[in-house]
């Protein structure tokens, strides 16, 4: 009995390896196809991970013959850099700004695309609907620099808004340098850019709702508001929950490109987020180790948040981003 099993094992092992060779012969091209993508993945996504050791070293760029050599030759300092970061006032301030801006964006901007999708869904005139959709999606395709330019022309010191204000005898309001107004400006411009585009996912969800439900509701004498409240919203609730969970997962992402394009020294106190701080400290002031360490902290927390939120979402709604 025992020897038989062993024998069949040998045979099956042999046939497995034969099978594998045959598989490779037939499909080596598949692996060939993977090569170009993998080269870039390894060089531009995984190689930088070596650089993360800078977070635990006192990195001095001129120590070696090249960057890699300098990284190796720089002395280990353990967790000193992290200690320096966590005990600094700047860290608390930029972490606070990141969270505040992110939460404000969720609170004020998350419901907007849902409302827009519901309103658009109620439009029966196809041409009107299509026109509105085309127009509201457009801002999504503009760069943050252009959005900055547009808002600066509208709300800057010499902008149209301030011209109107001064014409009517009011004082000018400088949104871009006022600490009270800069965060609202960030929220408004982010809403302007993304609301239309974000409504697409909810539009798709509404389309999937069974139309018989509405017909039955009309027979029962339910008006539009009741239909929206009792059919549309419950119908898209799973998608809303999914999007909210994922959005919370990206809470450390307060909108780097946007803030980087729009902020200025006058509003650092209220707008400097982790990423912009890393850029200025790490590259601007060449405190490479600090920039790397703070970046590593940010990436690890973000990674944990996103994967756990995706996990929660998969458990509760059966859907996720991967």
């Amino acid at each position: 009995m025992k020897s038989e099993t062993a024998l069949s094992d040998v045979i099956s092992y042999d046939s497995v390896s034969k099978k594998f060779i045959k598989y490779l012969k037939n499909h080596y091209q598949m692996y060939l196809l993977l090569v170009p993508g993998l080269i870039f993945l390894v060089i531009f996504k995984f190689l930088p991970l070596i650089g993360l050791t800078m977070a635990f070293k006192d990195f001095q760029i001129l120590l070696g013959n090249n960057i890699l050599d300098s990284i190796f030759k720089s002395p280990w300092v353990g967790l000193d850099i992290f200690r320096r970061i966590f005990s600094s006032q700047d860290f608390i301030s930029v972490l606070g700004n990141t969270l505040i801006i992110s939460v404000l964006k969720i609170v004020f901007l998350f419901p907007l695309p849902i409302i827009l999708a519901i309103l658009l869904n109620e439009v029966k005139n196809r041409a009107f609907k299509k026109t509105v959709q085309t127009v509201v999606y457009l801002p999504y395709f503009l760069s943050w620099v252009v959005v900055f330019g547009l808002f600066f022309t509208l709300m800057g010191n010499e902008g149209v808004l301030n011209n109107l204000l001064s014409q009517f005898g009011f004082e000018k309001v400088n949104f871009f340098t006022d600490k009270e107004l800069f965060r609202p400006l960030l929220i408004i411009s982010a809403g302007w850019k993304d609301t239309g585009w974000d409504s697409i996912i909810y539009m798709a969800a509404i389309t999937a709702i069974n139309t018989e439900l509405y017909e039955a509701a009309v027979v029962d004498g339910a008006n539009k508001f009741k239909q929206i409240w009792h059919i549309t919203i419950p119908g898209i609730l799973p998608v809303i929950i999914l999007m909210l969970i994922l959005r919370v997962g990206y809470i450390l992402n307060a909108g780097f490109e946007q803030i980087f394009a729009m902020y200025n020294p006058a509003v650092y106190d209220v707008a400097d987020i982790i990423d912009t701080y890393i850029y200025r400290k790490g590259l601007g002031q060449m405190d490479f180790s600090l920039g790397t360490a703070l970046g590593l902290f940010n990436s690890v927390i973000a990674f944990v948040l996103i994967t756990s939120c995706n996990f929660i979402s998969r458990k509760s709604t059966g859907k996720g981003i991967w």
Partner: protein
Amino acid sequence: MNYRITTGEKIFKICNAVILTFIGLMAILPFIHVFAKALSDNSAVISGKVTFLPVGLQLGNYEFILTKSMFLTCFRNSLFITIIGTLLSLFCTVTTAYPLSKVWLKGRKFFVLLYIFAMLFYGGIIPGYMLMKSLNLLDTLWSVIFPFMVVPFNMLVVKTFMEGLPESVEESAKIDGAGDIRILVSIILPMSMPVIATIGLFYAVTYWNGFFHATMYISKPDLKPLQQYIYEMINSANNINNNMSVEEMLKISPGGVQAAAIIATTLPIIIVYPFLQKYFVQGMTLGSVKG
């Protein structure tokens, strides 16, 4: 009873149309204002007379950015980045997505995991900069192309699309003894054109709009892409009037030139967008969420 509902519905319809018209106007009016400003007379711009129609129509602002500034050079850089970048990205994305769309591919899970990890874990600004520096890619246009070579999200969208293609279409080619590459080129590629168009547009927009990488990696003025040029122009309104005659300087204003540059940068997107909207929306609903 019935009558009451219809009145209510009518009111709702009207309110809805008004609200949506308002939202639509909000989305488009900033453009119209900047567009008008770019075409307006210097004095009208400075005195703030321009709202939604050009005042004292003239093309001096456009003339300036097209002849007296670095605009065209930067435009060419952006064009190069966008065209070459999109083509290379599409190549790498499709060649990656096809093998990974096959459930039977050995090692598939591992490779997919690599890309998902790359999507979720960011190495950071400083290590990225050090990498570019060690590869001697600083101050080259490649430095802003390579980081976006395969955007994992886009690759996963293409992969999902290919998974949906019926396996049977490949059967006849397999019987003829065609290799995987030939099947990809002659069968899968033509069938995947809708998703390739969508993803190609996403890449093109990413390349055209990208500016942070350029800010970090490119410092030579003649290598800067358009977005960076505009960013610097807005932030330093005074640097436009070198080597100009007094007459020319009277014609243009910083505000007007900025407006013209903003419009000229956005124009390529605004022109192609209405025709390609279908593909954009398709991609959004195709790839955003995995069941």
